[in-house]
């Protein structure tokens, strides 16, 4: 049972007061995952710290070489924001696949990462966009790769009281494709998801990053496939070859949402489709 909920409006206020709060405490921003955990009793806490109106967390800023995205920006915001549309197209494209409109109006990217689900749509887009995570603990920041934060299913390296402040997404010349396999036309948790960001010139891959969801313990980068494709011309042969490689790179499981062979095949099919549409 929740004993206490405390709301803060700035980071300075948060760091000043956080240590006075009950020990079993947790941040809440959108709450779309936390509400579910609370309902099913999988969360043992005494205090929720409401950071949904902390102003530093709700910024989207374009800087010289990167875009800063606050961890508390609502998902639906990405569809309306011009910086995101131009500089982080994968994230822009992910929005329509992300949960449902009502959830998108309240859920956040920070929560998507903190929840550490292998099927996280936001993380899938961030990973292929090569985003880094800014963590903040009592005012002290560290910047980590997503893979070093999201270390297992429902497992992160985030320390107690440490806050995901936002993401740094490099600005690089690329196009992107976001594909997600769901069980009906809309509203579904992914059976498998693939995001490709690539810089392709005259049919050749100059640079590429590929991420996949729901096909391993974490949302993962498909580095072998990336390495294979870099510098290659996109043609039937390379597409077919990369289809084979990516299927060896993922390690899906059977569960109530799908079966491993299907997930593997879909990742391959999605890669083919992504490459031919980026060509």
């Amino acid at each position, binding site marked *: 049972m929740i004993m206490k909920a405390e709301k803060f409006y700035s980071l300075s206020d948060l760091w000043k007061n956080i240590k006075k709060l009950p020990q079993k405490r947790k941040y809440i921003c959108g709450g779309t995952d936390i509400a579910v955990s609370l309902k099913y009793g999988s969360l043992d806490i005494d205090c929720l710290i409401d950071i949904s109106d902390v102003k530093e967390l709700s910024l989207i800023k374009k800087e010289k070489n990167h875009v800063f995205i606050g961890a508390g920006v609502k998902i639906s915001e990405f569809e309306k924001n011009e910086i995101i549309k131009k500089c982080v197209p994968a994230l822009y494209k992910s929005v329509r696949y992300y949960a449902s409109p009502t959830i998108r109006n309240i859920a956040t990217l920070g929560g998507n990462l903190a929840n550490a689900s292998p099927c996280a749509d936001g993380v899938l887009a961030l990973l292929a966009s090569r985003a880094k995570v800014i963590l903040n603990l009592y005012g002290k920041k560290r910047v980590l790769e997503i893979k070093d934060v999201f270390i297992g299913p429902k497992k992160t390296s985030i320390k107690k009281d440490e806050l995901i402040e936002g993401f740094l997404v490099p600005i690089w010349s690329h196009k992107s494709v976001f594909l997600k396999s769901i*069980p009906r036309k809309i509203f579904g948790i992914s059976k498998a998801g693939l995001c490709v960001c690539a810089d392709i010139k005259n049919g050749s891959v100059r640079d590429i990053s590929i991420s996949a969801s729901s096909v391993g313990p974490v949302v993962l980068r498909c580095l072998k496939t990336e390495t294979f494709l870099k510098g290659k011309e996109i043609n039937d042969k390379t597409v077919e070859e990369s289809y084979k490689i990516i299927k060896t790179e993922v390690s899906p499981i059977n569960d109530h949402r799908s079966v491993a062979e299907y997930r593997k095949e879909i990742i391959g099919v999605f890669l083919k489709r992504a490459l031919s549409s980026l060509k």
Partner: protein
Amino acid sequence: MSRKKENKLSFVGKGIERVDADIKLEGKALYGDDLDFAKMLYGVCLRSPYPKARIKKIDFSEAQKDPDFVKLITAKDIPGSNKWPVVNDDYPFLAWDIAEFHSQAVAILVAKNRFKANELSKKVKIEYEELDFIDDIHKSITKKENIFSSYVIKKGDAFNEIKKCKYVIEKEFTTNYQVHCYLEPQVATGVFATDGTLAVYSSTQCPFYVLDAVCAITGLSSNKVKIIQTVTGGGFGGKEDVPALVGAHAALASFITKSPVRICYDREEDFRSMSKRHPSYSKVTYGADENGKLKCCIVKYILDAGAYSTLSPIVLWRGTVHAAGPYSIDNVYVESYAVKTNKVPCGAFRGFGQPQISFAQESLIDDLAEKIGMDPIDFRLKNIIDKNKLTSTSQKIKDSIGLKELIEIVRKKSDWDKRKNLKPSANNKRRGLGCSIAYYGVGLGAKGRYLDRAGAYINIYRDATVNITVGNTEMGQGALTVLTQIAAETLNCPINNIKLDEVDTSKVPDSGPTVASRTTVMSGNAIIEAAKPLRERIFKTALKMLGSKDMIAKDGYFISGSKKIFFNEVIKQCWAERLKMSEQGWYVSPPTTYDLKDGKGDAYIVYSYSANIADVEVDIETGFLEVKKIYSAFDVGKVVNPVLALGQAHGGILQGMSWAVYENLVIEKGVMKNPGFTDYIVATSCDIPEYDVSFVEKDYSEGPYKAKGMGELPLIAVAGAVRNAVKNACGVEMDSVPMIPEKILKKMGRI
């Protein structure tokens, strides 16, 4: 009384607005959880966490310390009987000694508020001993004691005939569960009064089933108990039998605590413990001669009943009777079984044992047509039942059959004969059409004939408003509106004068369940029976007032020449003359002759029919199946309200499609893995196919204004049409529902 000439109907056949539209749209309807009672307590069930376990010890000492704790009720506290009366009466209200499925109710904890009831229920320690369980029907069926019920139909000599057939086809099919997904979960409130009477407010299709259960568990007599149906937010069969269990629990808790007690399920509890559509296995064989005439059909049909028999015996019976399909076949052999497993007990769901076997036999009919080299529609037309032909139970179809016309309508509308020209929307997609047909025996049939009667009470007040009490329920399907139309027509009474209420068992005789698409026919006829003498008095008075020998009764007016008087004026005069302005009606369904020994005879009073064509597109790389359009034509007799009938058609088609392609309840080792809307996938409004619905109105002479039944028919054969369309699109012969992409890719050999 002459029931007027067809072309002069004022209210029947009109698409009048639902009488309950406003309260539902404006949020004013009082559903089960909206009612409030002073000092109401809340009950919550404690449930077994194992597929099968012995209950060793229940320790609630920790929960008892809380000031909000009221009572913990177990089987030994039941003052009446711990056998829920359904068909075989094998299901205890609360598990005693052994719990036979995961989430079976073991005890009820009552607390002062809902939150505390849930909190405290977690503090009760129940010690179990896990026992071996069976979750597979093929293992279970090998033991005779696991077979809850079994039927056979023998017509001609199928096993001998099959040897002579030029074309023989035999295949196995399976179907999975379907969850009702009614918007309003199960809810009931028991209100025990100081005078020793007990009222139960229940979200239910079958208040009289709740009455029987409440009397059984409390030991109270029927005249001390009344069941009041609350506005019911969806049923689809899921509010047929199980609300009796929920209502009995609430009644018991109220009876023991002497306070009102509410029990309201959350979605997960509802998923885990309430009834479902039965998973099925079937093996079907059809044989045809060199001319494409169906000569024989052999079916083995098994339903996975779950841990208790509940309604399985009658679900299975309906499936058995319809198993050979709507075809005229001289040699039929059907054997069927409902088999126990340690899983949630399955029960009624729109279609009631028919959709599963319809999927199998309509798939196989298509495959047989292909084998013979005939167009699947031509093949069906050659073999369908028709007037004066015999069904598989040797029932002669006497009247009211439009099947042939229905097939021709969908064939024409879908441009079936040019289906090869259909273009897919992308290179990796394939498009196809598939056909299916169905018949549906209206009402409870021979097996349930003792329950097939209904009552109605009509009371006309001095101000000419009319109160009508019936024993069948509104659950969203439109019964209140359709029955109002029938009453209005018979009395020549304006719609707005009439008020029909949710059922109160103390005000109307036991009218059986609101199931089997029987309400229009049964309660409709009961209303006509009640209205007949009233009509005579009203019409006679009107004639007198008009001073005429002839008149026209229309739209609530009585007209003779230039004279015109309104219904209200006539009623005023009737009262002035002290005429009897209230009557009771009673309708009993016509006789059936079915013999359970060999499955011969008239199984149902009449049949409704459907023909369906599905237009689908399959992504051959991902296996994703999209149903683009469904053409359906129905013969349900006279359509009482065309707008509501269309709604029933759309809803049924969508629910059938959803079962066919999406809905996949996963139970592993007796434990449900996706008990909620996150992972149990149902069609959303975005997944709706385009609908093209037609009606052919073939008069049913015994029906109210010639109507038959409608509710279940649209769902039944959708899966077969979709499956045959998938085959037409990409050559894959699916044999399992739901047709999820994983299965399609596997059949294609791509995974």
